[in-house]
């Protein structure tokens, strides 16, 4: 399986995402924001960072980048797309995912090892988790507060489109403790925390049994490989 990772000007975690894909057993393919070409990949990751300096709004200018025309078509045709942090903001700005992001309620940039609950394990990116699984992956953002109007919130809660919820601490004031959501079909998923930073023992978040041993993020990528194998 070939999974594309799009690099935008200001992307920071594109190579970490490529490495995570390789560790999970797929082939990462570097894609460029200025191209109109997905190079025949089977899935796409929009990585974290500060694309275009986050000018205007986080992810806003990137959501209008040339390659996003192909990403939007592919997502609407059912291709798995994962947006991590800045990538989540891009997917919301592109209207591929519901809601939007504002500045963290406390105004601070925050970085912490974050506990999450997997609320929906039927998406392309979460099918290797048990439903209700509690996982720990790193979080780092300034504009991570998920917001949506009441009607949207009722719809996504009712549809099971809330995929991840913050546990113990709501780190940014997100409504309903929402850390990540999906589209109705479940092929497009976005979340603020970073699974690609929790894929290799020795370099992951601290866990109760050992420092930096967390690898809960690896299942995001093995999930999409499993979804691809079934398709």
């Amino acid at each position, binding site marked *: 399986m070939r999974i594309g990772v799009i690099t935008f000007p200001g992307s920071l975690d594109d190579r970490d995402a490529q490495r995570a894909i390789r560790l999970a057993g797929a082939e990462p393919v570097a894609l460029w924001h200025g191209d109109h070409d997905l190079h025949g990949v089977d899935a796409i990751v929009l990585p974290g960072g500060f694309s275009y300096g986050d000018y205007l709004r986080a992810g*806003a200018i990137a959501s*209008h980048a040339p390659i996003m025309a192909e990403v939007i078509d592919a997502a609407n045709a059912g291709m798995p797309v994962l947006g991590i942090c800045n990538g989540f903001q891009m997917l919301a700005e592109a209207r591929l995912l519901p809601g939007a992001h504002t500045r963290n309620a406390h105004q601070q940039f925050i970085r912490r090892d974050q506990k999450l609950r997997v609320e929906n394990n039927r998406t392309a990116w979460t099918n290797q988790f048990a439903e209700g699984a509690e996982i720990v992956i790193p979080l780092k953002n300034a504009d991570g507060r998920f917001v949506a109007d009441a009607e949207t919130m009722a719809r996504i809660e009712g549809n099971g489109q809330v995929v991840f919820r913050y546990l113990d601490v709501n780190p940014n004031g997100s409504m309903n403790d929402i850390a990540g959501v999906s589209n109705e079909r479940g092929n497009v998923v976005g979340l603020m925390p970073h699974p690609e930073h929790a894929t290799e023992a020795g370099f992951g978040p601290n866990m109760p049994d050992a420092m930096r041993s967390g690898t809960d993020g690896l299942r995001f990528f093995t999930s999409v490989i499993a979804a691809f194998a079934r398709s």
Partner: protein
Amino acid sequence: MPTIVVEVMPKAELLDPQGKAVVGALARLGKNEFRDVRIGKRFELTVDGPVDDALLAEVHAIAEDMLANTVIEDVVSVHQAAIETVVAGETH
């Protein structure tokens, strides 16, 4: 040169953390008469040619599509700037 002004505000029902920080700072300065401060954005789009209704309508569409995210913000005004409101020294 003709300038079109677009003003965008965060939706009233949403928390505006920046505005909240400013109203807190005002209170610490003893300015207690301000209950709330909300911070929006002002865009100035300069054009070479004349501004007509069709161009204003196009700017309004651009504002709704890109300059603002209508999930969290409202476009509150799209209008041509009167010459005297443009920052002194940049015109005439």
